[in-house]
Structure formats: structure tokens, C-alpha cells
């Protein structure tokens, strides 16, 4: 038996979707602020079809399964979760690289799935993407100058002088100076931190309104991580950018985001302001994540960490009810494994999908 994963999510909506559909709206918070909402994700489902022998349907990987949130102009959010929880799929759907099977992504009140090819190109110039591995993201055979002018050529900026000027402007902004030293260099001639700056410059070059950063510092050394985070922070403030920062490392999110969303097995399980999440995590999964993140302290070596048993579930056959229940230390018998928890708001603007707060 062979199982293959399609490159693109399936477009035919399978029958089981209607049963598992568990969309609940945010309530008043999303309605009140809809005026300055830049990006709105509603009940997003992105499923990938699994095939057996190349043509038989063998189920779906439910990478994103019912995610809704709003992102306002100039707001930075952090999406935290383990690998395989669907955070990268969510991000790629937001960038228009995957099509959702249900739900939609609205940018400036326009549904991405309704955009024409031409409008999609315009959208892509408004949404920049900072990749995880800078070396893998930069074409090795192009000079920095060519890498940076490419997006502008595609966006139709024909005047070479305009492009040159823009490149210089942004490179100066990310402190890659003197600019002339870097323009003719190839990616391998730059250090990891410099490569990541080029990736950021490329994302910024068309003056976007939204930046999606997928683990932008996880490949970098500790001593330059903070430098890159500060740079992103500065760009966000000076350009009034909306930023989605995706990571599995809770300790870097706090320096960057206004709100944190915690994702587990394709669903958002907790949403709140940074300090609320870090000081009063409500969902047992968030609590486990926080407990597992070490601060440098010699006492760590003396004790064992309490961790939830097992591993994240398969997204082909996720557990019934709450997806965390097989690992949850606070499981309520007869409830958690039966019904999917809706979003509760135990504290103002602090949402969690956990039955403990019913």
C-alpha cells in the first residue's frame, strides 16, 4: 500500500466535513473592530487529499480545521505550535498558495478565492513572506541586486532607476550598509544573519501591508536572533505593518507580538494578549508548552520536567472531541472525548477552546 500526498489541497469538499464543522464566531470582539481589519480568516479548512495507489481516496490530512481570526492594521500576532500542527499550511493559505476547502481569507474585505490572477499578483505585492531558512530561500546563482529587483520586475516596475533607488532605500533601512558592498554579492558570501536581512528586504521591497514570517530566527545563532527580531520590530512600527509571526519558540514571541494564538492539531486552542498567555495560560496545552520552555538556569539539570504523554495526533484521523484530550491531564470524562469544545472567554479578550471553562 502506498499513500501519496497531493501537492495541492483537494477542492472537492468531502462529505464528512459537514459533520465535523464546528465553526463558532468570536462574538463581539470581531464585530466591533471590523473597520480596521486588514485580514480576516473565517472558518478556514485546508485539507490535503491522501491517495492510495495514485488514484483512490484514502482520507484527508486536515492540516487546518476550522480557524478564524482577525488581524488589524499594524498589529503583530504570533502563532505558536508544534511542527505538524498546521501553522505553515495556515500561513501558505493566507498567502494564497493553497486553496481552502471551506471558509475564506479576506484581505481588505476581498475574498482571496474570488481574486483574478491579476488581482492576486497585486495581493502578493501587499503580503510579504519571510522564510525560515534564509539560505534555502535565496537563489544561489543570483546576486543580491538581482534577488531584490526580481519582485519589482514581476510587479511591473520597469524603470531601472526607480528599482535601484528602492533597493538602496530598503537595504539602508535594514542596515546593510554600505549598500554597494552587498549588491554584487551572492548569498553564500553572506553570514546567516545577513542572508536573513536580505530575505526581509525582499519581503519589504514592494512596500507590503502584511508580513508573514515563518520561524524567521530559528536557523540563526543566539547572538544574532535578537538583532533580527529587533529589525522586524522596528520595520513593523515604522511602516505600520501587520505581522504574522509563526514559531514554536514561545520565548521569542513575547518580544514581538501583541497577541499570541496557540495552535494544536489544526485548531486554535487559545488566543489572548501576550502577557495574559504568559502569565495566566488557560488551556492545558498552552500550560504544557510554557512548562517545557526552559530559561537558562542550572537548576534545570536537577529536576525532570512534567510533560503530557504521547505525541500530537495524526491529522488524518484526529481524536473525537477535543484533540488534546488523549494527552490532557485535566480531561473531563464523558465530555472532552465526545464534544468539540467551543471558544470560551473566561477573561476579557482571552479565548480558549477548553471545556474546563464552561
Amino acid at each position: 500500500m502506498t499513500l501519496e500526498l497531493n501537492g495541492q489541497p483537494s477542492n472537492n469538499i468531502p462529505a464528512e466535513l459537514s459533520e465535523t464543522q464546528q465553526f463558532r464566531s468570536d462574538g463581539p470582539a470581531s464585530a466591533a473592530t471590523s473597520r480596521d481589519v486588514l485580514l480576516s480568516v473565517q472558518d478556514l479548512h485546508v485539507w490535503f487529499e491522501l491517495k492510495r495507489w495514485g488514484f483512490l481516496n484514502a482520507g484527508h490530512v486536515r492540516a487546518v480545521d476550522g480557524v478564524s481570526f482577525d488581524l488589524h492594521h499594524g498589529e503583530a500576532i504570533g502563532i505558536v505550535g508544534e511542527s505538524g500542527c498546521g501553522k505553515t499550511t495556515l500561513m501558505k493559505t493566507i498567502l494564497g498558495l493553497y486553496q481552502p476547502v471551506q471558509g475564506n481569507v479576506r484581505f481588505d474585505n476581498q475574498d482571496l478565492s474570488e481574486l483574478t490572477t491579476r488581482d492576486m499578483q497585486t495581493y502578493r505585492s501587499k503580503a510579504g513572506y519571510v522564510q525560515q531558512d534564509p539560505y534555502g530561500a535565496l537563489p544561489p546563482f543570483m546576486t543580491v541586486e538581482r534577488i531584490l529587483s526580481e519582485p519589482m520586475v514581476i510587479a511591473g516596475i520597469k524603470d531601472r532607476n526607480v528599482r535601484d533607488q528602492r533597493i538602496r532605500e530598503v537595504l539602508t533601512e535594514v542596515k546593510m550598509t554600505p549598500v554597494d558592498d552587498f549588491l554584487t554579492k551572492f548569498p553564500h558570501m553572506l553570514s546567516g544573519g545577513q542572508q536573513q536581512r536580505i530575505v526581509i528586504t525582499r519581503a519589504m521591497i514592494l512596500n507590503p501591508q502584511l508580513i508573514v514570517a515563518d520561524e524567521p530566527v530559528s536557523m540563526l545563532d543566539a547572538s544574532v536572533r535578537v538583532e533580527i527580531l529587533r529589525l522586524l520590530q522596528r520595520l513593523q512600527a515604522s511602516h505600520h505593518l501587520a505581522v504574522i509571526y509563526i514559531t514554536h519558540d514561545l520565548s521569542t514571541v513575547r518580544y514581538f507580538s501583541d497577541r499570541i494564538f496557540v495552535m494544536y492539531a489544526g485548531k486554535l486552542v487559545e488566543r489572548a494578549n501576550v502577557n495574559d498567555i504568559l502569565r495566566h495560560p488557560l488551556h492545558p496545552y498552552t500550560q504544557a508548552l510554557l512548562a517545557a520552555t526552559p530559561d537558562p538556569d542550572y537548576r534545570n539539570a536537577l529536576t525532570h520536567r512534567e510533560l503530557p504523554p504521547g505525541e500530537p495526533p495524526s491529522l488524518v484521523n484526529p481524536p473525537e472531541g477535543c484533540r488534546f484530550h488523549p494527552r490532557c491531564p485535566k480531561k473531563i470524562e464523558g465530555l472532552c472525548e465526545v464534544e468539540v469544545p467551543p471558544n470560551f472567554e473566561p477573561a476579557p479578550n482571552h479565548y480558549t477552546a477548553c471545556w474546563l471553562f464552561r
Partner: protein
Amino acid sequence: MTEKETLLSIEDLRLYFRTTQGIVQAVDSVDLRLGVNEAMVILGESGCGKTSLSRAVLRLLPNNVDTYSGDIYLEGENTMEMADEAFRRQIRWFKMSLVPQAAMNALNPVLKVGDQVAEPLIVHHRAEKEEARNQAAWMFEKVGVPVDFLDRYAFELSGGMRQRVALAMALITLPPLVFLDEPTSALDVLTQANIFNVLKNIKKELAVSFILITHDIATSSELADSVAVMYAGQIVEVSDARRFFTDPLHPYAQLLMSSVPKLKVEQEPTFITGQPPSLINPPSGCRFADRCPSAFDRCSEEPPVFLVDGQQVRCWLYRAKGVRA
């Protein structure tokens, strides 16, 4: 730090590579001492020579070695005097083994993981296949992999499980010393914490010593008894974990420590400006002087190692407080 019996002692170890641009001084005059059942962390940025150091000790060398000198005493025996074949037969896997970087992705995709874990026993200890498999099953239990995974292939396991398999493979011959090269850098927080729980258990139960090579300060504190900080091919500070994580001495170690984003403490992290020097023509004098906030004129001379209350530090700032080692 000194109570424990010495297991490994490295003296003046050098490993230089020939390249078209010149000689790369990847490991330059390193002295280290590791006790029995001790876990030492070697911290450093990428390119500082920490992986080369482990390669030098295990004699896993590439073709372009220029200089390879110094003394490595393992259980009192100088392994540098051994011939390659004797080293392979008596030391590697028997006395020291390595969990290489990204080991979880290096498992053979067409072999069952149980067979792969048993292989070192069959090759080095001439064990019977049956016996080796039983030993592998026992080791799987120790590292927390379900025993029925013996017959699975690497692609059927999650990242955390594969990392445990790689660890089981390094431990199967029960060597007294295991090198771990970035064992958790590609793993999630929960899996990472899990692997460290396993390592703590193994350290206690099997009395193994670990040398953990990493750039991640926060997670390194999970296992460390002592810490060695490496910068540009040299060890700049060695101290026990308790002192290091509360009060590092070398300016580089201090800056590195304050660059760690912390979760539970309110503190803005900082970063170190500039870049580490090239190892081809490293600056004379202190190699960190260019980036050091407290550099002064003496730093143009090569700093010796000073002993400050049992902590070794290679920095002129401690010329008054410490004694020359």
C-alpha cells in the same frame, strides 16, 4: 567539579584544515577535563569549531587535515598515540560514541530501525544477531521507544522517536562517553524537553558521561554539570553549571547569556554586534577583542587562562582577580 574521577582529559589539542584560502584553525589549543558521569556542554556560535572539536576527539577527520596534534587521555590512556586501526577497534563505539548533528535524518531508510541499532554490537562486539536484537530492545526501553518499533522503518517514526533511535544506537555498546552534537535543534519544545528527560535518566542509570555540543543556552542548562564556551576555535571559559548560569565571567559568555530571550523573567535581550573573526587568519591577541565592550590595550596580546575560584577564563580582565593556570 574536581571531585569526580577524570574520564577524558584533552591537552593542547589542535586541528587545522587546509583550504584554498589558507589554513583554517578550527580547533586551536584546547584543554578540557571531563569527569566520570559528568555532562559537559560546549557552547558556541556556528563556525566556532565545536563540531570540529568532537571530530578531533573521535578522530573522524576529513581529507584536508593540516595539523592534528595534542594529547587526549581517555581513562588514562593517550589515544593520540594509537594507530588508526587500533583506535577503531578499541575506542570508537567501545569507549566513545557520537550522536551526529541531524542524526534523526541520517537513519538508513531501507533498514529496520531495530537492525540499525543492533548493528554496532554485531560489528564491534561480534555479537550474535539474536543477542544484539535483545540488547536493542532493552535499549529502546531505556530511551523510551516502544519495543514494537524495532521492526519499523525510519520514515514511520516521528522526529522525536527517530532522535531517540539515534541515541539508542550510540548507547548500545555502553560506552562511558557519548558526544551529542545539537541533539534537539530540529525538534519541538515538548519533544525537546522529553529527550532531555531521557538523557537525564540515562545519565543516572547507565552512569554515562556526555559532551553536549550546542548553541542553545537555555536547553543546554537542562543537562549541564559544567559548561565550556568556545569562541573562534578556542575555549574561552570553563566553569561548573551553577556558576556559569548565574554569573559567567568572560565578556563573550556574558553577552551570549544576555542574548537569550527569557520567558519567565522580564528582561530585554541584547545582541552582539559584529561577527566572529575568520579562522583563516585569526587576529593576534584576544579573538573577541573587536566585539568586546570592555576591551582595553592589553587585549592585543594573547590572553592566558586565568583561574578564578575554579572557573577558567581566557580574558585579561581577570589578571588581578585570578591566578594564571
